[in-house]
């Protein structure tokens, strides 16, 4: 488990239970993470703490040990991958004169060389072995390197496409075979005639984002700077649905300035969120208890659909997002917006899902399980017959070297996976002022910012900053004391959780708590985006685990 905490970030309803059973049957589990998480506490035999943003460096050293021991699966690499030779040259130091040894990795990652060697040997010699690489480490300033390195390690060990193995990525289950349709999006006239942005990462099919779209984590910057800042337009109006962006987008103080600068803001909401407070028009949306819906597990990580039935009529003046749009469309000159009712859409969507069965039966039972004739193993077909079933990449192979990335010509996203230095890591001069690395993992008692306001959930644990006792003592901070956490972007007051469960030099605050700025702009709600930086990694990841801060007694 690498940066993977399924007990809190639910990845398939039963994943943690399955992992517990695997452990009970003798599977050895190692957990690599700056924190001893709930998953690690219960499931792992060994915890390897490392510094945030250095995961790729640790993986490079693991690759070095495997190469040095000649434990890598050369036949697998020859058959299914492209570019391993270039990667090998980089690892052995033939490209830049620096062999990526465990001794090289130690000062970067904080992991002792003997631990790295043992990890590499355990992973290389255990067959099969699953590298469960969570998404947290990828959500950093150069997070692509971690994911690409993870895939490379699974290819080096020949663990792709085999039961009990893993491809080093946690993605969508290969069910259903066809993408499930959502409501048709229609054409966005703003994007008509937009130019492809060739400096950004293309989709698998090779298309580049058109110029009218901007990265979600650039939205406040785009509002403030407009065309002068290189963005596609000067923005005046903001229309927000299903989103609490003044909470879940980085750099909230920039966000406050951005929202104040706009002429007109419309928000669909159920609660008075930080975003809703800025609305010129606030449209009350009903809840899932007031409408019928079909729910599916996140990325089909479990195979079922749940009927979410309407329990009561919509309260007060609230309507569903769909009803609001249906009523608004003709008033804005958009006719024939929808020729179906919400119920008709649900039936149509259900019908298009292979093997869904009768809708009435589904409604009656409340759940529809998908039974497979045998377990699905990702990339099984590609491994069985690579000529007939190429991988969905430009070359049809696992691309350890990517020509598309080479074409981007950006040293922060090189064509082979590397460890790259980036802003706000421990080599940034800013460390003098802000010496602690902040990570912002998913909470266990809410889903992002949803359900933060539920009293039964709120009382379970105080929302607090995890800080190692060494760092706490150096600052005179005791358990439960109020801590002031700050950098140039913002400041918050939050209780301290003084613990041995986090690496010294690292602090951690669960993301998603509600932004509550006081009159001076100090966040009393403990929302991590008060501190995180706007922008994104070269491939488009939110850099929410790359952030330097200082902590003082509050």
């Amino acid at each position, binding site marked *: 488990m690498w940066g993977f905490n399924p007990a809190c970030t639910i990845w398939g309803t039963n994943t943690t239970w399955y992992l517990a059973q695997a452990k009970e049957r003798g599977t050895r589990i190692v957990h690599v993470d700056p924190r001893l998480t709930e998953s690690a506490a219960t499931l792992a035999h060994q*915890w390897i703490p490392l510094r945030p943003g250095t995961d790729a460096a640790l993986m490079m050293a693991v690759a070095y040990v495997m190469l040095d021991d000649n434990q890598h699966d050369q036949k697998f690499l020859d058959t299914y991958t492209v570019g391993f030779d270039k990667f090998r040259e980089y690892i052995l130091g033939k490209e830049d004169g620096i062999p990526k040894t465990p001794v090289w990795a130690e000062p970067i990652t904080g992991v002792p060389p003997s631990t790295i060697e043992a990890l590499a040997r355990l992973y290389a010699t255990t067959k099969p072995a699953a590298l469960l690489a969570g998404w947290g480490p990828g959500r950093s300033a150069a997070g692509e390197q971690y994911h690409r390195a993870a895939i490379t390690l699974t290819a080096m060990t020949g663990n792709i496409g085999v039961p009990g193995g893993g491809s080093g990525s946690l993605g969508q289950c290969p069910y259903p075979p066809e993408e499930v349709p959502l409501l048709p999006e229609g054409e966005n006239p703003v994007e008509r005639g937009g130019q492809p942005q060739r400096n950004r990462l293309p989709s698998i099919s090779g298309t580049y984002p058109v110029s009218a779209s901007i990265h979600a984590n650039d939205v406040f910057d785009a509002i403030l700077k407009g065309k002068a800042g290189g963005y596609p337009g000067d923005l005046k109006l903001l229309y927000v649905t299903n989103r609490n962006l003044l909470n879940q987008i980085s750099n909230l103080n920039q966000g406050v300035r951005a929202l104040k600068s706009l002429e007109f803001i419309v928000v669909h909401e159920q609660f008075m969120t930080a975003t809703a407070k800025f609305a010129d028009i606030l449209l009350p949306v009903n809840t899932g208890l007031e409408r019928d819906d079909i729910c599916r597990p996140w990325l089909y990580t479990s195979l079922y659909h749940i009927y979410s039935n309407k329990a009561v009529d919509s309260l007060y003046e609230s309507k569903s997002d769909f009803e609001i749009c249906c009523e608004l469309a003709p008033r804005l000159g958009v006719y024939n917006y929808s020729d179906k009712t919400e119920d008709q859409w649900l039936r149509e969507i259900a019908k298009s899902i292979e093997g869904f069965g009768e809708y009435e039966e589904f409604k009656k039972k409340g759940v529809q399980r998908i039974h497979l004739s045998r377990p699905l193993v990702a990339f099984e077909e590609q491994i069985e017959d690579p000529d007939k079933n190429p991988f969905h990449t430009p070359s049809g192979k696992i691309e350890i070297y990517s020509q598309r990335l080479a074409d981007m010509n950006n040293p922060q996203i090189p064509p082979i996976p590397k460890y790259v230095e980036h802003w706000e890591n421990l080599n940034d001069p800013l460390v003098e002022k802000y010496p602690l690395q902040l990570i912002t993992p998913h909470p266990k008692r809410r889903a992002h910012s949803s359900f933060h306001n539920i009293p039964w959930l709120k009382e379970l644990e105080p929302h607090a900053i995890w800080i190692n006792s060494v760092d706490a003592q150096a600052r005179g901070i005791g358990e439960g004391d109020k801590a002031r956490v700050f950098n140039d972007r913002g400041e918050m007051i939050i209780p301290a959780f003084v613990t041995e469960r986090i690496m010294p030099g690292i602090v951690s605050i669960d993301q998603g708590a509600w932004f509550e700025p006081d009159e001076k702009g100090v966040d009393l709600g403990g929302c991590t985006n008060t501190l995180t930086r706007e922008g994104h990694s070269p491939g488009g990841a939110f850099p929410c685990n790359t952030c330097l801060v200082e902590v003082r007694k509050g």
Partner: protein
Amino acid sequence: MGFYFDQSRCTGCYTCSVACKDWHDVSPGPASWLRIITIEKGKYPKVSVAFLINTCYHCSQPPCASACPVNAIFKREEDGIVVADSDRCLGKENCDLCRQACPYDAPQFGAESNPKMQKCDFCLERLLDGRKPVCVEACPMRALDAGPIDELQAKYGNIQEAEGFIYSPSAVPSVTFKPR
């Protein structure tokens, strides 16, 4: 009746605790019939963390019942479930003896003035319906079980040791564990 708790499986997710409050309509606040305790031991990087359920273990010799001056707490003869009669209870401000007598914090009190004692009743109404307590059904790790204590001991063994748990020989709690 008693509980089985597999400490090697619990991830401290609180689902049991919230399911309990939901089923029994316990208001947000200090009263919680089933709590999770986190036990952290050691110094970085040699650290271990364990989670422990903390509830009424429906003791063989419940000290709360002996302590109650008005016989508001009693152990049911037919199934051994320890129940409380809130109509008779004198309230926390007037009495508090059961809370002081219990080694497991089982007697719980709400935020209202002079709150009456409330605690785990083993989901009696579910039991009469042939169902397990709601905490058992809610646990995503299948770390909990409940039933006649002799049956649980036959199935899981008779172990009174778990990280953070102190066995009370005078109370004889009806619980068996799988420790970490």
